[in-house]
């Protein structure tokens, strides 16, 4: 970072101390931003319609917390399915067998090509399509055939809709990660006698992770918010819970604020988690020697104050 290079060692030629170029435009822009921010905060705090006391009252309401739990559960399960499925589809897509890679392509094409809300509704109404879901020999007799309506509860429909859709996106992310690893790595691994599977698991994937994790973090954050769609199929997630409450007491705005606050708390936690994961998988790369998050944020702020080119504090950093 340029600002770190300003050292004042004795015995070295004196550093240049020039009067920096004046940038009146910056000051004007900063002032405008500041005024707007103050106006917004003032209106938010003083506008009685926000009803902050109601927000405080419902923040830890049992129904809200239960909804939050469902939201988190949905996010975790759907992402887990998405990641595993994505890995499988990515490896299939790179297979030399055209049927296998074609199958993967078809899956991705279909699930990326239709809105996730439509997919959720499909799964929710699957009983109309296949009243009985059988488990048995393909094209042969089925051993058990439970009723689709009892098997596919709203919650399973939500999991299926979100997870299968996510798999298609994660497949593309994972594939991009895998092909970002130089071919020489696989050559070296195979020349040492590793099988294709060992090469993938020990050599290629750990390196692909550096490319896979930032967009996966994005996907997780996006998933957390996408789960709010499941309220349309009567899954009692966070949004559904607050909707239920405000449909009886009509405190719509404060309750939507409650939901928003919880969503933003969760995404913030994810940001921190992503940062540490990135650091773990960045080991061995030359940009690895970075301090903890707080230190880097501080460094970023400091370098901005010094008026330097406030370069992004490090590689792999998100906005």
């Amino acid at each position, binding site marked *: 970072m340029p600002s770190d290079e300003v050292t004042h060692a004795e015995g070295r030629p004196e550093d240049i101390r020039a009067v920096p170029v004046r940038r009146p435009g910056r000051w004007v822009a900063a002032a405008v931003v500041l005024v707007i921010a103050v106006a917004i905060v003032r209106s938010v705090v003083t506008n009685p319609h926000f009803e902050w006391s109601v927000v405080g009252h419902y923040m830890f309401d049992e129904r809200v917390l239960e909804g939050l739990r469902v939201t988190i559960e949905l996010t975790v399960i759907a992402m887990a399915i998405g990641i595993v499925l994505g890995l499988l589809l990515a490896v299939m897509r790179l297979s030399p067998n055209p049927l296998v890679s074609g199958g993967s392509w078809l899956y991705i094409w279909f699930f990326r090509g239709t809105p996730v809300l439509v997919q959720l509704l499909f799964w929710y109404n699957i009983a109309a399509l296949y009243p009985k879901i059988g488990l048995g020999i393909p094209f042969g007799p089925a051993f058990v055939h439970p009723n689709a309506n009892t098997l596919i509860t709203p919650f399973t429909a939500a999991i299926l809709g979100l997870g299968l859709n996510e798999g298609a996106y994660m497949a593309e992310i994972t594939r991009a990660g895998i092909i970002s690893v*130089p071919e*020489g*790595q696989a*050559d*070296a*691994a*195979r*020349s*040492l*006698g*590793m*099988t*294709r599977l*060992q090469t993938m698991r*020990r*050599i290629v994937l*750990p*390196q692909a992770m550096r490319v896979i994790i930032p967009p996966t973090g994005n996907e997780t954050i996006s998933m957390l918010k996408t789960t709010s769609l499941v309220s349309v199929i009567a899954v009692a997630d966070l949004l559904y819970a607050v909707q239920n409450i405000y449909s009886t007491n009509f405190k719509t705005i404060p309750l939507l604020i409650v939901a928003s606050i919880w969503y933003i708390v969760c995404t913030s936690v994810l940001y921190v988690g992503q940062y540490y994961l990135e650091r773990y*998988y960045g*080991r*061995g*790369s*030359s940009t690895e020697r970075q301090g903890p998050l707080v230190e880097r944020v501080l460094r970023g702020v400091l370098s901005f104050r010094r008026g330097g080119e406030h370069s992004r504090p490090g590689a792999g950093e998100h906005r």
Partner: protein
Amino acid sequence: MVNAEGVHKRFGRLEVLKGITLQVMPGEVMCLLGPSGSGKSTFLRCINHLEKINSGRLSVDGELVGYRQMGAKLHELREAEVARKRSEIGMVFQNFNLFPHMTAEQNVTCAPMRVKKLPRDDAAARSRELLDRVGLAGKVDTYPSQLSGGQQQRVAIARALAMDPKLMLFDEPTSALDPELVGEVLGVMQQLARDGMTMVVVTHEMGFAREVADSVVFMDAGVVVESGRPADVLNNPREERTRAFLSKVL
């Protein structure tokens, strides 16, 4: 050790190897020379079956590469068998191909632990011994990105040696190095040759070919143009193409 008879290799319509015939004896060091694009790397990759040959015969230590002969028919080997055969052949690449997410020691212990199922302690002890042998005893816990090119290539040699190969393939091991780092890698290779390792080395280092190699093979456009003892091929080439090439690199 290596026996090639009329080895052909095509990439699509491009014929890269047009009938390579040569022998490498156990303990022999053979240097492969030739202009860029003549198929040297491709031939090395065929030897450990990173590339499949299209016709001809190629065997290592008496066994066909990638196939098993039953009667008059050739049967392809299963992946695990190919992998086991490869593990007996070490390969060193022009651009090192060290695993960047592993320390020097982990690079060396990885294959013995995963492929040979060696216990971690044994693999680590052996790795220290090998890193010591290539002069990198102090770099055990260093990641490749913090090593110089010469050091990286020596780790790569140690990594290949960790599988106790009976044959080592070197594909221009010093071409990506700064001139002052070439010596340290060649030194390690020379020591290896003295210890009796069978080696096939693609190189443009004529000094190494002259002093260390037992035989030199000059390839051009997918065929062996000339081969023999280093002194003969390098000092008194019989073929015009060899002479033209040597006058450019010497």
